[in-house]
């Protein structure tokens, strides 16, 4: 009998496992896949390491910061800052036709760019920054309002609005076009006010640290352990049944696999659930024979869009190349050059089309 079973060995499942193990709970994390990571994972092919999902870690803070989300996470998981081997970004850019906004870690560069490119919006931009919800405000009244509605009251230039939304939506928008103002605030802070960094060895470094800590604390991690049902008694989760029929009992079940999938495992018919989200991405990873900088890609990330209007929605075609994120793991401020020669391009995609193609082949 476990105190808690956790579904999914992604970062959130692993972190939850560590916190519960600190509190002396018997915890088991169940993961369907052959490896940890979930949406932010990694693989190795032909002697090269590839990351899946995250381009960078947001919420960057230099060593010694004690108050930001990164410092809090490290403390709650009892990890050392240096163990992450973080390197800050070299600089990023939002590229729309004829207008570019550069940003780095901390607000200074973006603020200067807004002042230069959108002089009549500079004061309004400051008001937007001042009105962002804080990390403690999430879930309070007002944070569930439309971000576009609130930002639209503060900024009056539609182009600047679209440009600022572009990275925020790409890095944290699970729904089409808009998001809650609370979530927008968190992402705005994490990207523009704090910033981007990358562990030198990639996302595997974060996952390795989490798994090691979890196991040190006596936590159990089971890979290739897909859950086919959550056992309910009197409306409370009492355990799970694995794909192979094994039943595991627990006082509590925590799920990190999303609302819809969790409800399905609880036996709610798919027809009774709200439809799944529309947002999917396709990423291509190119291994180049030269550093990306030699091809003119000097930035950490370029968020591009080919017209003044930004369409963050599911395309009818398999992929929407009109906007996207171009990112290179080479372009972080490492102590020694990365020499990975990797370029990643992420675009919005239509999941159903890809799934149908995969079935055909």
């Amino acid at each position, binding site marked *: 009998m476990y105190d808690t079973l956790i579904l999914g060995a992604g970062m959130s499942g692993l972190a939850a496992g560590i916190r519960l193990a600190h*509190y*002396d709970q018997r915890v088991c994390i169940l993961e369907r896949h052959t490896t940890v990571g979930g949406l932010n994972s990694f693989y190795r092919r032909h002697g090269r390491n590839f990351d899946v999902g995250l381009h960078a870690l947001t919420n960057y803070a230099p060593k010694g910061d004690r*108050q930001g989300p990164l410092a*809090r996470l490290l403390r*709650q998981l*009892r990890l*050392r800052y240096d163990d992450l081997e973080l390197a800050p970004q070299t600089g990023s850019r939002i590229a729309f036709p004829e207008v570019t906004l550069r940003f780095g870690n901390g607000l200074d560069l973006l603020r200067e760019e807004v002042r230069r490119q959108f002089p009549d919006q500079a004061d309004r931009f400051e008001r937007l920054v001042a009105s962002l919800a804080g990390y403690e405000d999430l879930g309070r009244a007002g944070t569930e309002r439309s971000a576009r509605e609130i930002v639209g009251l503060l900024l009056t230039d539609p182009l600047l609005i679209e440009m600022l939304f572009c990275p925020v939506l790409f890095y944290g928008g699970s729904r089409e076009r808009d998001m809650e103002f609370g979530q927008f605030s968190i992402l705005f802070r994490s990207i523009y006010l704090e910033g981007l960094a990358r562990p030198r060895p990639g996302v595997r470094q974060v996952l390795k640290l989490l798994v090691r800590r979890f196991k040190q604390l006596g936590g159990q991690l089971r890979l290739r352990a897909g859950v086919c049902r959550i056992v309910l008694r009197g409306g409370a989760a009492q355990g799970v049944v694995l794909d192979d029929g094994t039943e595991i009992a627990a006082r509590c079940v925590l799920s990190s696999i999303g609302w819809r999938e969790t409800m399905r495992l609880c036996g709610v018919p798919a027809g009774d659930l709200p439809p799944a989200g529309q947002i999917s991405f396709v990423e291509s990873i190119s291994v180049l024979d030269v550093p990306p900088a030699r091809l003119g890609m000097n930035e950490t990330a370029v968020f591009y869009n080919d017209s003044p209007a930004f369409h963050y929605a599911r395309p009818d075609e398999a992929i929407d190349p009109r906007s996207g994120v171009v990112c290179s793991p080479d372009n972080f401020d490492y102590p020694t050059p990365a020499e990975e020669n990797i370029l990643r391009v992420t675009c919005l995609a239509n999941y159903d089309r890809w799934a149908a193609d995969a079935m055909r082949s």
Partner: protein
Amino acid sequence: MTPDEIRETVLDILSDIAPDEDLSGLDPDRPFRDQLDMDSMDFLDIVMELRKRYRVQIPEEEYPALASMTSTVEYLTPRMKDIPKK
């Protein structure tokens, strides 16, 4: 445990919870909150570690006693005097 041993125990827990902190310059009379930017979750972690390691139960209304090193040692001395140091 003597007050000195209790102090060592608390330092040990603090260094586990905040591995990046240099605790050598900790002022025993100033609140941990001010010196280490600790929040309520961190205090809960200290309470939990004391319970796990030494079976010391601290009721929630007495958490304020853990504000600084001096107040913590003072508070724990009668409660841990018969517990051997690990």
